[in-house]
C-alpha cells in the first residue's frame, strides 16, 4: 500500500516537473544563489516557474532520491550510503559543480584575533582548546557555534577541518549560516563558520594551512586560485542527465551570464574551462 502511494506521488510529481515547473531544494548555503538564479531566469523565460527552498544539503539529497525535487542543491558531495540508496531506487545521479565557495570562519568584530591555523580550528571545534587565551586572545571561554547535522557545511567542515573527528558536545547548533552569523555578531567571544557569501556584520579570519604558511583571507580571488585552505565546490544533483527545461536552466547557470550573477551574490564563479566542460550540448 505504501509503495503504491509513493509511486503515485512520484508519477504526479514527475508529470508536474515537465509542465514548466522546476523545483530546487537543498543546501541552505546555496539557497540565496538558487533564488537569484531563479529570479533572473524567470525574467528571461516567462513560461517557466522555478521554486527554490532550503532545508540543508542532506534534505535536498533525500528529496532527490524520493522524487520530491528536480534539482538538488548541495554544498557537499553525496555520501556512499546516499549513492547506494539512489542506486537501489534506480536513480542515476548526475553531478555538476555550479559555483565555488569558501567556508569562512567568523568571529565578532570586537575580537582581537586575526588568524588561526587549521590545527587550532580543529582544536577549538573538537573541544581540546576551550579558552581564547590559548590561541592568543583575551582570557574567556570560547563559545562555539556550528550547524545542525543535516547541513552540508557541517559535513564538509567535519571532513576537511576536523578530519572526521566529532564536534565538541558543547557546540551550539543553529539552523542556517545566517543564524550563525547573527549569533557571532551578538556574542563577543563566539566563533562560527559558514559560506563566504554570508560574512556581513562579522569578521572573517585569515586561515593558515599550518604554522609556517601565512594566513590567507577568504575572498573570491583566494578561493578561485585555491590558496584559501577551506574552499569547496557547490553542486547541483540531477536524476539522470538533464534534458529539456532542466538542461536549458543548467546551461544558463553555467554560462557567463549565470556565473556573473553568482559573483554579484557574493559566491565565487567557476573557472571558465570547468563551466564550459560541464555544459550539456
Amino acid at each position, binding site marked *: 500500500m505504501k509503495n503504491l502511494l509513493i509511486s503515485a506521488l512520484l508519477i504526479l510529481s514527475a508529470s508536474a516537473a515537465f509542465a514548466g515547473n522546476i523545483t530546487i531544494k537543498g543546501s541552505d548555503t546555496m539557497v540565496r544563489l538558487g533564488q537569484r538564479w531563479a529570479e533572473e531566469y524567470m525574467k528571461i523565460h516567462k513560461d517557466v516557474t522555478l521554486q527554490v527552498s532550503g532545508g540543508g544539503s542532506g534534505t535536498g539529497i533525500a528529496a532527490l532520491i524520493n522524487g520530491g525535487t528536480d534539482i538538488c542543491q548541495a554544498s557537499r558531495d553525496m555520501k556512499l550510503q*546516499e549513492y547506494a540508496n539512489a542506486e537501489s531506487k534506480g536513480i542515476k545521479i548526475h553531478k555538476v559543480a555550479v559555483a565555488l565557495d569558501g567556508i569562512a570562519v567568523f568571529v565578532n568584530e570586537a575580537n582581537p584575533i586575526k588568524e588561526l591555523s587549521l590545527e587550532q580550528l580543529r582544536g577549538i571545534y573538537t573541544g581540546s582548546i576551550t579558552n581564547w587565551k590559548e590561541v592568543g586572545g583575551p582570557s574567556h571561554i570560547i563559545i562555539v557555534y556550528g550547524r545542525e547535522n543535516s547541513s552540508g557545511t*557541517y559535513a564538509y567542515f567535519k571532513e576537511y577541518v576536523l578530519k572526521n573527528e566529532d564536534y565538541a558536545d558543547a557546540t551550539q547548533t543553529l539552523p542556517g549560516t545566517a543564524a550563525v552569523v547573527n549569533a557571532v555578531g551578538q556574542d563577543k567571544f563566539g566563533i562560527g563558520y559558514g559560506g563566504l557569501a554570508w560574512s556581513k556584520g562579522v569578521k572573517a579570519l585569515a586561515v593558515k594551512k599550518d604554522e609556517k604558511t601565512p594566513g590567507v583571507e577568504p575572498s573570491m580571488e583566494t578561493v578561485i586560485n585555491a590558496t584559501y585552505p577551506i574552499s569547496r565546490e557547490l553542486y547541483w544533483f540531477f536524476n539522470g542527465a538533464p534534458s529539456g527545461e532542466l538542461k536549458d536552466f543548467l546551461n544558463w547557470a553555467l554560462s557567463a551570464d549565470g556565473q556573473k550573477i553568482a559573483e554579484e551574490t557574493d559566491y565565487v564563479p567557476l573557472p571558465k574551462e570547468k563551466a564550459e566542460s560541464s555544459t550539456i550540448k
Partner: protein
Amino acid sequence: MKPRVSGNLFPAPALYEMEVEKYSFKKKSRIKEFVGEKFIAANALTALVVILLIFIFIFKETIPILTSPEVKKEASISRMTFKQEFYPKRDPKWSWQPNSDVPKYSLLPLFLGTLKAALVAMLFAVPLGVGAAIYSSEFAPRRLREIIKPVIELLAGIPSVVLGFFALIVLATWLQNSFGLTYRLNALNAGIALGITVVPVIFTVAEDAMTAIPRSLRQAAIALGANPWQVTFTMVLPAALPGIAAGIVLGFGRAIGETMIVLMASGNAAIVSGSLTDSIRTFSATIAAEMAEVVFGSPHYNVLFFIGTLLFIFTFIINLGGDYILLRMRERIQGKTK
C-alpha cells in the same frame, strides 16, 4: 508491547453514562434518530482511532531497537541510557553524535535538557499564572476581570515561532547583558519564552477552578468574620487546589512538547550539566532538526522515532493525569463523590 489505551486505569465515571429514552414511536423518526446517533458516535470514535493509529505508526518504527541485532549494536536501550566507552582507552561518557564514524545515541543529555527547559518554564509561569488567576477571580473588579481573562488567553494565540524569534534576538541579548551569562542561548532563555506559552494554560484552568467554588463557601467564611485575604487563602485556595494542580500538570505537558521555541532559542548543545545557564538540547528540537535528513530505515531513524514515542507517552500520561484530577474535582463539587 502495546500499552492499553483505555481500560482499568481510571474507572468510567457515572457522569458519562446516560440513559437515552426514546420517546418517539413513529418509525421514520426512529430511523433518523438511529442514523444520527451512530453518525455522531462514529465521529467521536474517529478521534480515538486516529490517536491509536498515530501511536502504532510511531511505535512500529522503533521496533528494530528492540529486535534487530545490527541496530542494537549501535542503539540498544542500555546503550542509550548508560555511559558508553565509545573509543577504547577514553573515559566512558554520554554523548549525542549520530553523524559520526562511531554513532553515539545517549539520551541522557536530551532528557536533562528537556527537563531543564520545562523546569524554568514552570518556575516562571506558575507564580504568574496562579497569581493572575487568584487576582482575576477573587480581587479584581468585574469590568477589569472581563478584560484580563480574554487578554491572557490571547497570549495562547501567539505562534511559538514568533516567541522563539523574540527569545533568540531580544531576550537572549538582554539576559546576557543583565546577568553576565557566558552562553547567550541557554536553558534560561528558552525556558522563559516557554513559560510565556504556559501561562495561559495555567491561568485558564486555575481561574475556572476558583470561580467554580460555590459562593456559599465564601459567604460562610465572611459570616465567621474573615477578611477577603483570609477568605481567599484559607478557604478558596485550598478548595481549588486540585484544579490549580491540574493546570500546572497540563502546563508541564505543554512545556515538554513545545518544539519551535527550544529549537531557536536554546543553543541545541547536547551536554550533561546541572547549570540552568548552559545550552541545552531537547527531545523535540532533536526530532525537528534531524528528521529531515536522516537516512530512511537507519538506526538513527529508529532512535528518532523512539524519542517521538517517549514524548508521546510522557505527554499522554501527563495530560491524562491532569484531566483525571479535573474530573474528580468536578465530581466533588457536584457532590457525586467525597
